[in-house]
Every structure is written in C-alpha cells, then in structure tokens.
C-alpha cells in the first residue's frame, strides 16, 4: 500500500511494477482529483485561459500520463489516511481499517499558514489543484494581490499575477528574498527582477495582521489586498503518524535510513514527508522538491523488493520566475567557497560552491542550463573543479573539472 498519490506515490507505484512486483498495489490519495503534477500549479495553470483540465476544465492538463488500470493499481481517491498501527500493519482511513504487507509513506508536505488567518476569506495558499483553481479568479479579475513570503512560491506566483495584470506587493519578514537558502550575492540581483517586473518588494517587514481586504505590516503600514497569497514554507504532512510506531524527527519528517526504510518493519518513506542521512553531504536531509519525489521512489521500490540500494542523490530543483529559469543542484553550506561565473547583473550567470578540497558541492544557474546539466554530473562523482576555470563562463563547466 502506498499512502499519498502525488509525484512520490505515483512514481513508487510505477517503479514497483517496472521492477516486477506482481501483487496488489493500493494507492491512497486524499484529494479527489486524479494524480497530477504540481510544478505547473504556480505557473501555467494560473495563466491558462480555460479552467485546468484536472479540475474538470479544458485547459492545461496537469494529470500524470499514467494508466493506473493498465498498471494494475487500485487508486483510492478522496480517501484520507487517519492513523497507522505499524505493529498490526493497518492503515486507518475514513473508509475503515486497511491491512497491508508493505507500506510506503508518500504523504508529502502541507503549506504553513499565517497564524490567525485560518479560514479568512481572500487568504490563499498554493499547494493543490484546488488552491490554484481558487486563485484563478483573483488573476482573471486583476485583483490587487499581497504575497507574503519572497521565497520560490512567492516569486513564481508574483510572476504569474503580474503577467495577468494584477498589482502585486511581496512582503518578506527577512531583509532579502530567500535569505534562508541563498547568500546575498545571489539574492541581490533578484531584487532587481522583482522591480523590473513591476512588483513592489518590501523586505524586513513582517506581517502583523491580516484583515478583510488588507494586510497590516509590523511597521504600521497597511496594504490593500483583494487577495493574500501566503508562501512561507511547508512542513511534512505526518501528523497522522503520531504514535504509529514510525519515528518522526523534530522537523516533523519521517526519519528514514539511507535505504529509505522507516523505523517500523515493512514501512518505507519517500518524497517531501521523509528525511534521510546523506553520506555525500554528511547530514540528514529533508528535501521538498520535485526531483526528490522522482528519484527516491526508485530506491524505495528496489529495497522493498529485497534490494539493498543506498539513497544519496544530488538534490535538484528549478524555479521559473520573472522570465528566468533558475536551477539549483547539490547542497552548500556557509563554509563552502562561492565562485561567481558571469555577471549577476547580466541575463545569464551561475554560481558554484566549492568545498575546501575543491570538490564541487552545489551550483545555481540563471538561464544557463548547460552549466546545470554538467554540474549535476560533476557533483554526482564528487569532482574537484579549478576555481579560475569555473569562474570563466566561456569555459564549459565540465572542462573546469580535474580529469578523473
């Protein structure tokens, strides 16, 4: 049984079949819609003229291109898992207890709400197809929008809202966009992207209250808002696992090992809901990105079927914002040396992070997809790169690596 019918759950079902699993597969999803791909929700789905196809309209079709009947997967939609009794191998659902032999947890993450705004009309999150559908009228009627949080989702939504002709203000409690994940040398040019798109970016200004039709900031200023979109992070959707016999970490993530096994026998975990120890980076990682939901299930399925594969990916994600493709691969810390590759005020540039031993740890690229593709391979084989060559954008990144 697989709990969670997002990318990670669907990929698990596909991987199990590809690897030869012939027994029953039940795939439980709490949303009523057929399984769908989330990245377009903050992009194409918001801007398409017609309602999204996955929501019954004729527009952008975000449904996965998977024939669940042909795969022999018993898809149970609109059915929420409420509890797990790992000792008895039973998942409790709204439709009663369901026994399993093997279980894969793929319940993903839920977006964090602003305190005090639950149920307030005009306040939106953006995670699901229904969330995106609820935001379409906001864009269609060109309402004045306040986005809370200058992170990845905030920037993508602001991009779409500006394209639709909305007046957009983005408020960020920290002093710059993406302060938790990227250094100033990278985020400074991003300020220019907001400005160039006509978005009013206000940093260092926490929200003190959301009222009907307005957002009040800590500095006392009041922003009129036809709609408020909150993008301030996500947490593993694991509340239902409390007391289940599956260990959860302080961050709420299912604690998996490097084989993606949980602490309960026969139970694996993949995607946004689980953390795992990375030998590559020497720390436990909780990755909330699409690529992790694509790769992890291969390992979990192989191990569920008796294999012994270690999961130690090079994390990867992308963001489409303000007419640019931003891509990031790897994982860096403040201890790594940052190497600029091109001018951050230009249209296309990259940055590399090198460890003390010269090994490429991570890369961020703006409209330089070849740098990204080459870096992913270099990082995967822990290749050292020459800092001077890496700093030269005319030298292919692969050529900056020491020959293995």
């Amino acid at each position, binding site marked *: 049984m697989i709990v969670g019918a997002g990318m990670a759950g669907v*990929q698990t079902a*596909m991987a199990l079949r590809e690897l030869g699993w012939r027994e029953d597969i039940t795939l439980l999803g709490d949303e009523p819609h057929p399984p769908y791909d989330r990245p377009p929700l903050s992009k194409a789905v918001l801007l398409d003229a017609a309602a999204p196809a996955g929501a019954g309209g004729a527009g952008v079709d975000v449904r996965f*291109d998977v024939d669940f009947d042909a795969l022999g997967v018993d898809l149970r939609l609109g059915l929420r898992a409420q509890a797990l009794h790992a000792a008895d191998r039973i998942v409790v659902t709204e439709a009663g207890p369901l026994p399993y032999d093997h279980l894969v947890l793929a319940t993903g993450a839920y977006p964090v709400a602003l305190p005090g705004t639950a149920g307030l009309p005009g306040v939106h999150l953006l995670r699901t197809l229904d969330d995106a559908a609820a935001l379409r009228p906001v864009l269609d009627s060109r309402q004045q929008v306040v986005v809370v949080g200058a992170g990845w989702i905030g920037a993508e939504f602001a991009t779409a809202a500006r394209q639709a002709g909305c007046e957009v203000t983005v408020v960020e409690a920290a002093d710059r966009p993406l302060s938790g994940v990227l250094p100033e040398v990278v985020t400074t040019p991003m300020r220019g992207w907001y400005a160039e798109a006509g978005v009013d970016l206000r940093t260092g200004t926490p929200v003190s209250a959301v009222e009907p039709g307005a957002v009040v900031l800590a500095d006392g200023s009041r922003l009129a808002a036809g709609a408020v979109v909150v993008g301030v992070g996500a947490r593993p959707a694991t509340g239902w696992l409390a007391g289940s016999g599956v260990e959860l970490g302080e961050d709420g993530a299912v604690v998996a090992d490097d084989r993606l096994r949980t602490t309960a026998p026969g139970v694996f975990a993949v995607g946004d809901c689980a953390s795992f120890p990375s030998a590559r980076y020497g720390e436990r990682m909780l990755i909330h990105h699409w*690529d992790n939901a*694509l*790769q992890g299930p*291969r390992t979990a399925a192989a191990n569920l079927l008796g294999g012994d594969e270690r999961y130690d990916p090079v994390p*990867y994600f*992308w963001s489409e914002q303000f007419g640019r*493709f931003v*891509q990031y691969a790897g994982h860096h810390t403040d201890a790594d040396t940052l190497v600029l590759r091109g001018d951050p005020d230009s249209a296309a540039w990259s940055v590399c992070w090198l460890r003390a031993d010269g090994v490429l740890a991570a890369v961020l690229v703006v409209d330089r*997809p*070849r740098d*990204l*593709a*080459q870096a*992913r391979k270099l990082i995967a084989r822990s290749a050292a790169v020459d800092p001077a060559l890496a700093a030269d954008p005319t030298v292919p990144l692969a050529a900056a690596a020491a020959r293995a």
Partner: protein
Amino acid sequence: MTATDSYVRVCALGDLVEDTPQRVEVDGVPVSVVRTAGDVFAINDICSHANVSLSEGEVEDCQIECWLHGSSFDLRTGKPSGLPATRPVPVYPVKIVGDDVLVSVTQES
C-alpha cells in the same frame, strides 16, 4: 529536391559542433540535430514528458538529456533512457550529401 525526395537541407555539416545540439525546423517540425560519435542524428526537439526543447540539453553516450526535468533519450531510437519520460520521442533519418545535412520528417526512422 524532387517530389519523391522528402529530405530537406537543414544546415552544413561544418556548422555542427560535436555534442552541441542545433535546433532547426523541418516542414514546421522542431528538430534537434546532433553531431556526436562520428555520426549525425535528428530527433524531435520536444521532450515527450513536457514541452521542453531538447536542443538546450547535454549530449553524452548517444543520449540527449532534457535540461529541465532530466529525462534522456537515445538519439538512435528515440527511446527514453532516463526518468521522468516514459514515452519515446520521434527520430528522423539523416543524409549527408557533401557538406549538407539533410533530414526527412515525413518518415520516422
């Protein structure tokens, strides 16, 4: 070119840089032309997984990789060799005549 000859000249062989795909259009079809390992291949430029141009991607071991999602395809057969794509991409026959690279999109090879 005669009526029975559906091959269209897309570029000069000398224009193609080894392992660097070049996007061309043949009869309205976007095609990625790749010179690699001593041969020239033509593959539909749009990834079968999502609307992404393959010609922006990297070529290695006769595979072309989608730069956004990471799917890869065999340049010889169009078959997917890496996730997330599960469906093939059309590949087309290529003829080299002198220094001219000719591609036919009316027949999939």
